[in-house]
C-alpha cells in the first residue's frame, strides 16, 4: 500500500446523503433556476462561444461603468472612468483575448452599438464564426455554404433578458440602468497594480444575488467576483479575471469609433453575393 492508497481509505465509508438532504438541495436548485430568470442576457444565448467576445465586451463595459460611488479612497476615479467609457453614440470596437483555465486561448473581435447589439467574430475555431447578435436572435454567416443561419432564442430567454435590464450593471444598451448601478455598490476598489507592465486600477465586481423574491443584491466574494483592471491613464478596461472559471480576458484593443458609414459596414456580416437566409426553429442551436 502506498500513501495514496492509504489516503483513499480515509473516511471512505461515509454514508450517502440522506434523502431529505438530497430533496432539499434539489429544491434549492430549482428555486435558484426559477428565480434566476433575470440573468445576464448574454447567458441566455445557447451559442455561448459565438457570443463570447460580445459578452465579454458587454460585461466589461457595464462593469466599468458600474464602478459605484461607494468606491472608497478613489476620488475622481469613478467620474473619470464614466466619462472615458461613455459611448456617447459611438461604436465600441474591442479585440479581446480570453485565456482559459486549461491554457486554451480564444480571440474575439466585436463592434457594439450603444444599444448593445453588434457583430462578433470568434477566431477560436476554423473558419472563424462571424455573427450578429441581438436580444432575439443570432445571425451567423457560413461562408462554405454561403448561408446566413438565424438562430432564434426562446421567448422566455428574450423576456429574461428584458427583465435583466432592471438589474444594476451588466447592460450597455440602457445607460439609465447602468446609472442605477452606480449607487448600488456593485464594484469596489481593491488597489493599484500592473497588467503586462501597464499601471491599472483593480476593482472587484459584485455578482447580483437573486433572492427568492427576485430582489437583487450585490455579492462579493473571492470565488465568484470578477476582477476588473482599468488603465490608470485612459480608464479603459485592460483585463478582467474570472476566478471561478480560472479565465482572464485581455482587452488588446478597446476604442470608440464614430457612428458613421464606415462603422456601419463593420456592423454587417461580410457575405458573398447570393447568400441564403435559413431561419431555424426557435430554440434550435447549431449542429454539433
Amino acid at each position, binding site marked *: 500500500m502506498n500513501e495514496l492508497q492509504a489516503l483513499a481509505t480515509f473516511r471512505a*465509508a461515509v454514508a*450517502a446523503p440522506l434523502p431529505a438532504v438530497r430533496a432539499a438541495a434539489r429544491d434549492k436548485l430549482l428555486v435558484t433556476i426559477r428565480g434566476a430568470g433575470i440573468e445576464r442576457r448574454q447567458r441566455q444565448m445557447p451559442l455561448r462561444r459565438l457570443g463570447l467576445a460580445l459578452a465579454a465586451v458587454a460585461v466589461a463595459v457595464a462593469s466599468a461603468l458600474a464602478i459605484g460611488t461607494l468606491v472608497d479612497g478613489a476620488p475622481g476615479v469613478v467620474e473619470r472612468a464614466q466619462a472615458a467609457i461613455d459611448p456617447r453614440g459611438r461604436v465600441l470596437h474591442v479585440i479581446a483575448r480570453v485565456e482559459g483555465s486549461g491554457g486554451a486561448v480564444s480571440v474575439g473581435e466585436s463592434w457594439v452599438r450603444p444599444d448593445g447589439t453588434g457583430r462578433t467574430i470568434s477566431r477560436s475555431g476554423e473558419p472563424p464564426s462571424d455573427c450578429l447578435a441581438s436580444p432575439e436572435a443570432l445571425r451567423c454567416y457560413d461562408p462554405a455554404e454561403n448561408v446566413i443561419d438565424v438562430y432564434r432564442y426562446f421567448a422566455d430567454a428574450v423576456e429574461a433578458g428584458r427583465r435583466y435590464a432592471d438589474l444594476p450593471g451588466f447592460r450597455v444598451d440602457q445607460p439609465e440602468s447602468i446609472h442605477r448601478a452606480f449607487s448600488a455598490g456593485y464594484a469596489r476598489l481593491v488597489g493599484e497594480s500592473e497588467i503586462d507592465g501597464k499601471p491599472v486600477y483593480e476593482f472587484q465586481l459584485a455578482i447580483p444575488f437573486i433572492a427568492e423574491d427576485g430582489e437583487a443584491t450585490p455579492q462579493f466574494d473571492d470565488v465568484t467576483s470578477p476582477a476588473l483592471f482599468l488603465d490608470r491613464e485612459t480608464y479603459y478596461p485592460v483585463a478582467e479575471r474570472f476566478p471561478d472559471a480560472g479565465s482572464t480576458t485581455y482587452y488588446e484593443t478597446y476604442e470608440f469609433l464614430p457612428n458613421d458609414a464606415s462603422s456601419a459596414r463593420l456592423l454587417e456580416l461580410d457575405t458573398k453575393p447570393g447568400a441564403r437566409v435559413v431561419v431555424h426553429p426557435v430554440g434550435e*442551436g447549431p449542429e454539433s
Partner: protein
Amino acid sequence: MKEQMGTRSPAPEIADAAVPAAANPDADAIRRSQSDPEAFVTIFDRHFEPIHRYLHRRVGRDLADELASETFAQAYRRRSTFEPLSESALPWLYGIAANLVRRHRRTETRRLRAYARTGVDESVELDVPGVVDRVDAGTLAASLAAALASLSADDRETVSLIAFAELTYGEVGLALGIPSGTVGSRMNRIRSRLAAHLPSDLRALREETS
C-alpha cells in the same frame, strides 16, 4: 449528432471542444439549460451523490449537506463558464465544491488536527477495510488526518481530488484551473509529505512493494 433540435452548420463552441457532444451528455444538458434552464437538474441528478460524498469526506456531514447544495446552485449560475473538455461535468463540479471548501479550511484543519490528536473523528464515521491486517486502522486514520492537516490548502485540495474523488491529474487540472503538469509536480511533493506521516509498519510495507 444534432443539438437540441438539430440544424446544419458546425458549432464553433463544439468544434473547439476536446470531447464531442455525442460522448458528453453533461455538456449537452448544460448547453440545453441555456435555453431550458431546468435541463440543469439532470446534472444534479447525476452528480449530487459523489459531490456530497467528496464534501462529506473533507468537512463532515453537516457542512457537506450545505456545501453540496450550494455547489449545484453555483454551478447553475456559472454554467456559461463550463467548458466541455471532459466526458463528465464532475471535474468542473468538484472544482466548484473545492472552492467552497476553501472558505471552511480553518474548520477542516481544526477537525483534522483534533482527529489526529484524539483519534476521534468528529466529522464522520470511519472504516478502513483491507488494511487492518497490517496496520492499525485507527492509527492509520489519525496519521492521515495529521498528514492532511499539515498540507497547505492548495495541496490538500489537490490530493483530496485524486484520493477521494479519483480524478486524474488532467481532471484535477480542469477542476482547479491549473496545468496538469503543475498537478503532477504538486503531487510529487505531497506524496513525500504524506509518506513521512505514515505509520512505520505501513512505510515498511510501502518500501517492500515499491
